[in-house]
């Protein structure tokens, strides 16, 4: 999932300064699961923004997914009454809102943090960097691109000690995890293969990424 984290209230307040009618739009997707931007959080944020601001009316709603045009249609009937929209979706939702509702500005209430998962209740951790060229079959299902601080391809650097990364004792060394996992799978020999330089053109480095699925594209006439 996409993991998002609520910005400081003061930051959000400064974005909507001077506005009297504010709509907070939540999202029923990833940010609901990570409890930072679903309907409940949008309602709470609306109440917090209205607090100490008697001149400001803040209301809230949520759509099932803010990153799809068809769900944004649901906002059409109500948006006319507001001056600005605060989105509690990820950065994709905020951009979708800005593209769809060109007469309104939608501002972000969250910082989109990473692609990850809850490793335990309330603790989310990064798992994928969307590099565009998955190599998890080579590394025992543990991603060195997302989880090694230096995204190394050929094993741990000299800073790996007692299973931890050199940058923090709170962070597991991804290559220690890979080593242990490959040992479990009886595939340690994989570590002896010289991994050639990665093709980063499939990652963000290649510019804006698009994926065309002609097999599912609808004809313009439909």
């Amino acid at each position, binding site marked *: 999932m996409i993991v998002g984290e609520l910005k400081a209230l003061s930051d959000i307040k400064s974005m909507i300064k001077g506005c009297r009618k504010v709509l907070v739009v939540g999202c029923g997707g990833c940010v609901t699961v990570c409890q930072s931007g679903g309907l409940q959080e949008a309602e709470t944020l609306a109440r917090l923004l209205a607090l100490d601001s008697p001149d400001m009316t803040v209301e809230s709603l949520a759509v099932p997914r803010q990153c799809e045009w068809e769900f944004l249609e649901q906002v059409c009937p109500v948006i006319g009454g507001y001056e600005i929209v605060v989105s509690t979706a990820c950065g994709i939702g905020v951009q979708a809102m800005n593209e769809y509702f060109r007469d309104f500005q939608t501002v972000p209430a969250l910082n989109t943090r990473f692609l990850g998962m809850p490793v335990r209740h309330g603790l989310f951790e990064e798992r994928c960097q969307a590099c565009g060229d998955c190599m998890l079959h080579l590394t025992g299902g543990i991603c060195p691109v997302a989880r090694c*601080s*230096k*995204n*190394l*391809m*050929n*094993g*741990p*650097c*000299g*800073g*790996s*000690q*007692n*299973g*931890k*990364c*050199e*940058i923090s004792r709170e962070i597991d*060394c991804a290559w*220690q995890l890979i*080593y*242990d996992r490959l040992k479990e799978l009886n595939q340690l020999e994989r*570590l*002896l293969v*010289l*991994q*050639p*330089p990665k093709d*980063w053109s499939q990652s963000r480095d290649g510019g804006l990424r698009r994926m065309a699925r002609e097999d599912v594209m609808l004809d313009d006439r439909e």
Partner: protein
Amino acid sequence: MMTGSNLERVLQTGHFAVTAEIGPPKSCNAAFVNKKAELLRGYADAFNITDNQTAIVRMSSIAAGVLVKEQGLEPVIQMTCRDRNRIGLQSDLLGAAALGIKNVLCLTGDHQSFGNHPQAKNVFDLDSIQLIKTIKDMRDEGRFLCGEELKVKPDVFIGCVENPFADPFEFRALRLRKKVEAGAQFVQTQCVLEMKRFRPFMDLINEQGLTDRVAVLAGVMPIKSGRMARYMQKNVAGMMVPDELCERLEAATDLREEAINIVVEQIAQLREIPGVRGVHIMAVAWEEVVPEIVRRAGLYPRPTNLD
């Protein structure tokens, strides 16, 4: 094929090699580099110029290496993967070789969070093993990483580092093997303070026949005080500092003398270990003690006129 590197000649002719480190200044002060070069002249076969070590911005290793070379010393320039992508690394290698640099040491590089610009974006387009292979292919095959031809090949002696004190221990020797297969000709180890761990590491790489293919330069470091030793013991990832060493420094009345004694003893022990073909002295910000260490270790004068 020899590269014209003095360090390579010293190793090839069977001498026990000595290298020392010169850390460039946090400014463009050439006199600082020249002064260190002057101090260390004749006490090592080559001088390692660090590349923004611990991610602190300093004069570039290639520029400082050229200054050192102008002083008549042979530089080993360090290249880390943190700050440059494959375009920058290959370009800088060509530049370094054009300026007469004969030795390159390839490292991953310390994470930028340790340095003075923790907000920086890191690169790590290549890792150190991929960098070694890239440089080897440029030199031996005359090919850039992309496969395009390169007319005048960079004639450099290729080094790497390995840390026997990092984990997983069993993998450290295998990682060195990968580096050797990628093209590393010499390896500089993390400073050896714990012989109990270094000996089994050397056993492992001897068993694999690696010491026939790569010259091992064991790292040593004079430690200024017991407090510094304790700090390293607690806080520096990838270092092993035994209690006895800390206690010895804590009990010392003449710290400089004791620090030098310790290193001289370590060098004597390292020389006895099969496969160790030299030492790399990392006297970080304490270069002034290097001449005395080299003399007292019986490694002075350094071999000359090896042609």
